[in-house]
Each structure stands twice: as C-alpha cells, then as structure tokens.
C-alpha cells in the first residue's frame, strides 16, 4: 500500500512537466500552428526559472520568470513562421537547438549550485497520512497543471475566443474572410504555448531535481509533442495521457528497483512504450475515422492573407 502511494507521488511528479508542455502545445496546434520547439522553450524556462529562484530564493517568481522566458523564446518562432511565413517544422527544430544553446550559455554560472525544492504549500500536518499525502503532498505547480487543463478546455469549448481560435486552426481562410486576425490569434496561441513550456521547464529544477545542468529536460518536450497526438487534441484525454506516460516511466524504475520477475522487460522497451502507445492510438484513430484524423485541418500550414 505504502509502495503504491509512493509510486503515485513519483508518477505525478514525472507527469507534471509533460502535462504543462502538452497543454500549451495543444492550444498552439488547435490554432493551426505546429511548434516543434517545445524542448527548446522548456530549456529556456528551466534555466531562467532556476536562475531567478536561485537569486531571489522565491520559487513563485521563478515560475513567473520561466513562463516569461518560454513565451519570449516562442516569439522568435512566431515572428519567423507567422509574420515571415517560414517553414514551421524547420523553425521549430531550430528553436529547440537555440534553446539548448541559450540555456547552456546562460546557465554556465549556475551549474553546480543547489536550490531548495518548490514544496507543498499545505500545512505539513495534512500530509502525514499516506492517503492525504497523495492529495496534499505536492508542489503548487502540480495543482496548477491540472487546473490549466480545465481552463484550456473551458476556453476552447465554452468561450467565444476559444471558438475563434479553433476556427483559425480548422480553416484559416474562412476565419480571415469574416474578419478575424488569423496571425494575431496564432501569435497569442504560440505565446501561451511558450509560457506553458517555460513552466514545464521550471518543473525540472523546482520539483524534480533541484539543480541546473545543460540539457536538464532530457527530451521530455518530444514526449509532450507525442502526447498531443496521443490525446487527439482533447484536453482531458491529454490529462489522462500525461499520467499514463508518467506511469509507464515510473513503473519502469520501480520494476527495476523491485528486481525479480519485473526485470523481464528490457529497459529499451520500457523507454519506447510511450511512443509505441502513440503509434497505436494513431493507428486506431485512422481506422475509426476511415483515414482521417482529428488533427486541426490547417495544422502546420503557413497562412498567407493575400491568397
């Protein structure tokens, strides 16, 4: 029982950065933009979040700065792809490389310095019982990531602005012809995605491993990208998917630590399970919908208003 509780707590921690990044990317993709630079934006957020927390000692400020850093780095992508109509795939990959380089350079003075973890804000008495610990034992970032999923769902499906954003993603020319600023909406979506990726990056030094080293995010941005597809662009499926991916990653480690019969699956297989699951879901989706997917129709296509 205690082990299950412990495992759930580790799983929630492992899932949170993926959930943040994927929630942001979901909004970006819903507006018809494919930003492959999640990993780069996460690294910008991680290094800035670490630096601000290290300097001020205040993790809340660190999260805020991380969001700003993620959004700022996403603007490089936005200007190139939305204003200058550059190829989104190539620009997104470039953003990842940029983020890695920038964070390495900026983070040099911070390597090898510890900070404190961003701990639960609930009084410790609440987390004494194992069951209560599952509910109250996390960093504020964990609760925030779950709230954001609800907020994004509400925004996309219950507000007018969300409807416009989806319209821009499904048919940019129609949205444009009835007077909406396609580029403006997409700028907003990309900035939001950047801010969420920035917070996702800040999760690494603040709740997972309180240090800065280059490449700290270890490729989680790519998992977030796969997760959006896995969830077929639906916020609550995204929530479930993030925890499923987190569970797979955590189970691998607990199984290895337990030893015995749990070691039968080689670690390479464990590591590839999230991707295999994504492929499986993609196949299932395309079978069900007779070849079509639930991807936004304008995903990845540059919008040229003159046409």
């Amino acid at each position, binding site marked *: 029982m*205690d*082990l299950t509780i*412990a*495992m759930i707590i*580790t799983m929630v*921690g*492992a899932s949170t*950065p993926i959930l943040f990044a994927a929630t942001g990317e979901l909004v970006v993709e819903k507006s018809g933009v494919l930003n492959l630079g999640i990993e780069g934006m996460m690294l910008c957020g991680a290094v800035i979040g670490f630096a601000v927390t290290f300097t001020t000692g205040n993790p809340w400020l660190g999260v805020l700065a991380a969001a700003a850093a993620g959004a700022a780095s996403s603007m490089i992508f936005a200007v190139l792809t939305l204003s200058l109509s550059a190829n989104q795939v190539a620009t997104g990959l470039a953003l990842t490389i940029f983020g890695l380089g920038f964070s*390495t350079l900026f983070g*040099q003075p911070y*390597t*090898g*310095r*510890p900070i404190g*973890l961003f701990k639960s804000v609930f009084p410790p008495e609440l987390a004494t019982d194992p069951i209560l610990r599952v509910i109250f034992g996390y960093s504020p970032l964990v609760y925030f990531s779950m709230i954001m999923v609800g907020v994004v769902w509400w925004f996309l499906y219950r507000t007018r602005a969300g409807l416009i954003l989806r319209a821009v993603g499904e048919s940019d020319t129609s949205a444009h012809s009835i007077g909406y600023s396609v580029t403006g909406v997409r700028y907003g979506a990309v900035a939001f995605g950047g801010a969420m990726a920035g917070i996702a990056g800040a999760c*690494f030094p603040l709740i*997972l*491993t*309180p*240090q800065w*080293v*280059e*490449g*700290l*995010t*270890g*490729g*989680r941005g790519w998992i977030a990208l796969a997760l959006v597809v896995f969830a077929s662009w639906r916020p609550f499926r995204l929530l479930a998917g993030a925890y499923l991916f987190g569970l797979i*990653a*955590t189970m691998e*480690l*607990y199984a*290895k*630590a*337990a*030893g*015995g019969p749990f*070691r039968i699956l080689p*670690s*390479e297989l*464990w*590591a590839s399970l999230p991707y295999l699951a994504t492929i499986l879901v993609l196949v299932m989706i395309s079978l069900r919908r007779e070849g079509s997917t639930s991807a936004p129709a304008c995903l990845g296509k540059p919008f040229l208003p003159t046409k």
Partner: protein
Amino acid sequence: MTQKKSNLSHTRRNILKIGGAAAALPLLGGRAFAQMSKVKAAFVLIGTPDDNGWNFGHDLGRLDMLAALGEENVETTVVTNVAEGPDSERVFRELAQQGNDIIFGTSFGYGDAMLKVAKQFPDVKFEWATGFKTASNLSIYNAKFHEGRAVLGTIAGAMSETGVGAYLGSFPIPEVFMGVNAFHLAAQKQNPDFVTKVVYIGSWFDPAKEADAARALIDQGVDVITQHTDGPAALQVAEERGIIGGFGQGADMSAFAPKAHLTAIIDIWGPYYIKAVKSIMDGNWKEGSSWEGLAAGEVVIGPYNPKIPAEVVAAAEAVRLGIIDESIHPYDGLIVDTEGVVRAEVGDVIDDGEFWAAEAWYAKGIEA
C-alpha cells in the same frame, strides 16, 4: 589488461630523443622547431568543464598539467560538448591539422573516430580515456574507480540499517560491472546479508530520471545509494528523503547534499596529463595503456562526512590503505556469483582486467 610502464633507462631515453629529433628535423622542418619550443596539447570533452563531475575532473587535470609544466612550454586547446560517434571525427581531424602534438579524447565513445584519425596523422599522438584499443600513436588511459568503490561499499555495508543499498548506472558496461561488484563485495564484508539493487536508467544523461530512480529505490527499502552517473540528482533525493546517504561521483558533491553526502570518489587526472605531455617534450612518448588507482593518486576518496562513526571511517581507511599497499584486493575470494558459480576461490583474486573480456556477472546478493 596489464599496466605497461615505461622502463627505459635514462641514457637510452636520451639517445632516442636525440636520434628521434635528428631524424625528424629534415622531414618536418619548421614544425619540428615549433614542437621543440612549445608543445601543443588538445583536449576533447563530451560536456563542459563546469559539470562538477567527469569533464570538470579532466579540465582540472589539464590545469594541473599547465601549472606543472609551465604555460611557456605548453599550449592547450579545449573543445567542449563534442558528441560521441562520427561527429567527433571532424573535431579530432581538425585538431590534428592545427598542429597539435598530442590530443586527449576523454570519452569512451570517441574511440572509432580517434583510431581513424590517428592512422591519418601518424606524427600526432592520441590519448583515449577509458579506451580499450591502442595503436602505434594512440595510447589509452583509465582510472581504477572500482578501488574507490570498495571504500564506498565498506561505508555502505557498515552504515546501512536496512541492509539494502543501490547502485544507479547508465548502461550495463564492463566498467559498471567492476564498480558494482567491488562495491557489493566490500559491503558484504561489513554485513554478510547486504543486498545491492542495480538500476540502469538507460540514458547517459537524464537527471530527472536519475532522481525518480532514486525515489523508486528509496521507496523500496534502499537507504544507501551510489551512482555511476555524473550528476548529484540521486544525492539530492537522498538528502530530501533523509536516508543514510550517498556518494559523490567524480567530484565532491557535498554542496548538494550536506547531510546525505557520505564521501566521494574524486578523479585526479593531473599526474597522468603531466606524464603524457612531458613525454612529448622529452620526445619519448610511447604507445601504452595506463590504469592507475588509489595508489597512484588517480582515484582519491573525498573527506568523510562527520556523521560517519569513527569505527566506520577506520574500516574505510583500512580498505583504502590496504588497496594502496596491496594487502587488500577489491576482488578477493571467495566470490560466488548470482548463478552460484565460484568466480574466485578463497585466497585467490580476480584480476581487474578480466572484467573487460568476461561477460557480465554479479556477485551473490546483487539484484540486477
């Protein structure tokens, strides 16, 4: 693997030097003169020197070498963040073309590229850290980290309350088998029922995953963790959870975990770099393989945490000094593996080098 030590006498070395220089002079012209005035040494690192671990150790060695031999005599170039594999070939070729006399590649995965470039530049000397193959102008050098791990295992075995320790590794490679067996065998001398759980995280670099692996291990009864990965992630989790502790790898990491950091294995590459570059200056560089440990000072045990009881420190020191004066061997019999096969009889030892050739085996009590 046996250690080859230079056993040339002084006179013979001088003759070789004069002869070598005289022979090279007409062929190389200006280059030979440049070589005589200032030796150019290049270092290729897989990360950056500020990683507080592996790369940090090598760069410290380079600085020691510069201080010992004098900056007026040696000029160094450092190339950081060079990925292993084919991409590194370009870097080694460029360094060779730039007229470096000796090039140090400080990661296992540079091997193929170095062997290839070494063939194309027979006048340049190459040194491959943790490598396993030499060529006429390529030497290998390594440190016996497992000797240090025997000291850590002694502390772990004596201090663990649950009797379960953990060893966090990247991938199952010979160096890790050596380390985990040395750690476990030493721990078992303190506590015959000691169990070592081995977890490979399947990645060279993923601090968040290291931290989660440490959490998984601690949740399952582990109270001492040692890691074969470079960062302090596992130590930080040990500190957070308040377990008995862990050990620094490559460098003193007590800043990250003041309570949990029991001690550290520190790599000291300076003496080797001094020796290697000096041999270029003296013109007597030779193909060889160097594998030194505690005795030569290439592997050093860091300061002991004050919370370690005096008798445990004494036991750890006894192992450290015993390995230095060769009265203790990290792999002395009786050693039985997990399959029940006797690997070393009482009174026998397993030569460290055998691990490179043999297939993987774990001593009894290791759960891998």
